[in-house]
């Protein structure tokens, strides 16, 4: 447990120091969302209709930014070997890194989402729904991202490759995240069912991703 919290703490603290990507990720999120209206036009009705999806896609993209450093740095400086030799299960390490990544990169973005929702003309209900679904679903994105980071750790331009590998795997999370927001807004569509499925994705990926990531890291060292 102390090893777990130590790695989570180190991940969070490294993300906010020089060279850490947490603030860059947040800035990227702001930029992506505010660039959208330039593409689709300033029509507020249209923006409020696609707003939840824009915020979700913004979070999805922002969470890709730090993946190359998530395990790549440990791979380069020998920390990965030391962790393997320590006898601490690799899956615990991967889970701890992914949790730290979500806390440092995911949570600030999720908290910024309702603020940005204002410039997309979202109603208060929509703001609440987007924030709630992001809170429930973005951990799954961090977990899936961790698998991508583990698969490409130590590769040149691994971050770009990780993004390509992670995006198709993230499609279900995106679908149910946006579906739950729309369910909360438009009456005929359900909210609870997609929201529960979204939560299930988070729980499921929290189990599967550490196992897969640990296997990828171990095999990548071999």
């Amino acid at each position, binding site marked *: 447990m102390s090893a777990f919290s130590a790695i989570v703490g180190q991940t969070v603290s490294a993300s906010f120091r020089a060279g850490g990507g947490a603030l860059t990720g947040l800035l990227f999120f702001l930029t992506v969302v505010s660039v959208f209206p330039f593409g689709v036009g300033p029509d507020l009705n249209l923006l409020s209709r696609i707003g939840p999806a824009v915020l979700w896609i913004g979070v999805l993209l922002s969470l890709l930014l730090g993946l190359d450093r998530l395990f790549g740095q440990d791979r380069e400086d*020998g920390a990965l070997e030391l962790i393997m030799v320590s006898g601490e299960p690799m899956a615990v390490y991967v889970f701890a890194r992914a949790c730290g990544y979500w806390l440092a990169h995911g949570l600030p973005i999720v908290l910024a989402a309702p603020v940005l929702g204002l410039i997309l003309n979202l109603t208060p209900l929509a703001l609440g729904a987007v924030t709630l679904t992001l809170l429930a679903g973005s951990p799954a994105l961090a977990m899936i991202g961790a698998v991508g980071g583990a698969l490409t750790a130590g590769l040149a331009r691994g971050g770009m490759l990780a993004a390509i590998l992670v995006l198709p795997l993230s499609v279900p999370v995106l679908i149910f995240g946006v579906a739950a927001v729309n369910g909360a807004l438009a009456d005929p569509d359900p909210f609870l069912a997609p929201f529960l499925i979204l939560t299930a994705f988070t729980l499921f990926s929290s189990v599967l991703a550490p196992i897969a990531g640990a296997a990828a890291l171990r095999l990548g060292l071999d």
Partner: protein
Amino acid sequence: MPSQDFFPAVHVAAEALACERGGRPIFHGVSFELSGGEVLAIVGPNGAGKSSLLRVVAGLLHPAGGQVRISAGDAEEGKLHFLAYGDGLRSVFTVEENLKLWSKLYGGAADAGSIHDALEEVGLAHAMHLAARALSTGQRRRAGLARLLLSRRPVWLLDEPTSGLDKDGEAILGAMMSAHLAAGGAILAATHLALPVPPTRTMELI
């Protein structure tokens, strides 16, 4: 330095180890035994597989054949220390923060006092609160040695332990190795230089 208890019944046995990297056989049929209080030096030319052998023993590489058994009393996990080129120091963190993380992962002493004592022993106490990026190569090696002091583990796997160390550093390493052997620990060292402590046995890889 933490308590000077004696490590119980330390034994490392490798049987007919074979290793392959990227489709190329590196070595095969490597067997050795190592008990507490002994140093086994692995020597050989570049590319003979000294580091690979150490990594196989550490469990980092899957052997193409053979097996390694490591026993130390009734300890199940956490029997090994691994010191190699990669020191696992994050440059944005202080030396203390770095060592603290490794102590927690290795189940060692993580309080400031123990870390200070360990750094004192390797001659790095003055740099305890400095960011690791300020350290020179030799100082990074010494920080790695401090990691070994903080958590007591019976078997040390050292890959080129003297590289990057000056005369003083070598003396510190020698004192550490002697103390570890006296406490019943075992050392497996891959090196192409002379070790500060005369090895009990030497194995040559060709």
